[in-house]
């Protein structure tokens, strides 16, 4: 079986850790001092080399209008056995505004206030036991984002895994927290766009042409009918007169008379006197 949408997840293999404890984003040199200013007390968050992605399994519902399905983060957070895994979901345009030090379950990361004013919400709250590593072969291990509809409007459940409010695109990442301190995080995923539904009126309901069968029936029957009408007219026009070439169908008596002699008249030789 598989584990879906519930909050039992277990990270897997340890990715090789970067030698520096400070996060290194390419081209983020400007952000680094800002980050240091904002997090004076934080010790570094380990950057785990894993990129969350949509599941590769052949599922019909990989993306729907308000949910999508990720691969579980198995064998990702192996080195952090005490950590709790959280999923951070943000709109593509708000990704760099996310601050890893904000805690889950607060007003700044409540699902119900996403996407405005909350730019990224946190959900999941799973321990490593949920994601045993390695993954059992043959099982479908996926994580459905947006499966909890019961708490979507419930402000008392800010970590709700509720349905997403629009088609996105969204980016996600996993964050490991020990207590309330973030210890490791993965990369942001590629942008995930959900399906949008269009109106059924956009499809033409009438067929573009007529099928060959219908055209064949119409033309052939019309021709036959025309021939029959022509024949009827010809019949009525030639009523009473002999039609050319055919003989009449009355009875014909043919009598032949043979002439034959009933008597032979012989020349008698001269009689005896």
């Amino acid at each position, binding site marked *: 079986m598989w584990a*879906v*949408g519930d909050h039992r997840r277990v990270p897997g293999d340890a990715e090789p850790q970067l030698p520096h404890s400070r996060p290194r984003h390419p081209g983020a040199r400007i952000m680094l001092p800002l980050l240091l200013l904002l997090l004076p007390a934080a010790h570094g968050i380990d950057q785990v080399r894993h990129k969350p992605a949509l599941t590769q*399994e*052949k*599922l*019909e*519902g*990989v993306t*729907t*209008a*308000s*949910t999508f*399905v990720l691969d579980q983060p198995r064998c990702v957070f192996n080195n952090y056995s005490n950590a709790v895994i959280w999923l951070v979901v943000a709109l593509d345009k708000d990704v760099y505004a996310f601050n890893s030090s904000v805690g889950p379950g607060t007003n700044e990361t409540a699902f119900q206030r996403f996407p405005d004013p909350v730019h990224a919400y946190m959900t999941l709250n799973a321990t490593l036991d949920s994601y045993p590593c390695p993954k059992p072969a043959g099982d*479908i291990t*996926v994580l*459905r984002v*947006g*499966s*909890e*509809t019961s708490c979507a409007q419930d402000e008392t459940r800010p970590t709700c895994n*509720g*349905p997403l409010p629009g088609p996105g695109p969204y980016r996600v990442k996993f964050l490991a927290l020990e207590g309330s301190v973030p210890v490791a995080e993965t990369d942001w995923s590629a942008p995930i766009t959900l*399906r949008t*539904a*269009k*109106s*059924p*009126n956009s*499809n*033409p*309901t*009438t*067929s573009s042409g*007529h*099928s060959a*069968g*219908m055209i064949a*029936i*119409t033309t*052939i*029957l*019309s021709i*036959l*009918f025309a*021939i*029959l*009408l022509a*024949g*009827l007219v*010809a*019949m009525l026009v*030639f009523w*009473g007169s002999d*039609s050319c070439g*055919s*003989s*009449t*169908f*009355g009875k*014909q008596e043919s009598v032949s008379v043979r002439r034959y002699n009933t008597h032979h008249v012989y020349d008698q030789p001269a009689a005896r006197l």
Partner: protein
Amino acid sequence: MAKSDDCVHILQGLLVFGNVVIGLCGIALTAECIYVVSNSDGPYPLLKATENRDIHAAAWIGIFVGLALFALSILGIIGVVRASRTLLLVYIILMLITFAFEMASCITAATHQDSLTPNLFLKQMLERYQKSDPNKNSDNEVTKTWDELMRQNHCCGVNGPSDWQDYTSAFRLTHSDADYPWPRMCCVLDAQGSPVNLDGCKLGVSGYYNSNGCYDAISGPVNAHTWGVAWFGFAILCWTFCVLLGTMFYWSGIEY
């Protein structure tokens, strides 16, 4: 001459045979059209909801044409055997009228078959399935028919479950996308009628949901009926054409 007599007898024999075949075909056409008219189960509520009843009109015409063909064939046999000009003239004219009606029926049935595109059913399904309007009974009919269709044929939607994702629908207005990406009837159901694995169905794991579309299940029986009316009628008309030509030739040769 004897040869001409033989020709006459052969022609008479052929015409009588032709009329016998027409009579039998007329009865068969009537029986088939009665079957089409009375066969109201299956996907026919969907057709009724499309307000396209052409196939019924064609079938009703077919019933009367069949009976007319049977009666006229008897008249034709009598006229040929008696070599009576008036009887045969009446026969020919009435046959032409019947020919015209049957032609109309065939063309209507063939055109109707063309109009049943998948998009027609798709639009109807999206607009009416699970539309919870207690006033409109026909929407309930559509919903019940679709549920029955999806349960019996193990199919979902017209082209597949993606219909419910790709298009807005009345169903979507009352059922959230996260809980019902597609209707519950699209799930593989157990004996009690509940899904075998609801999560599997919502995810779309093969084996727990129906992945085919129902269009084949709808169009199959409808096409069979339409072909029956249209093409059998066409065959009868071709045969009737030959018999009528022979009768005209025979008529023109009868002694006045």
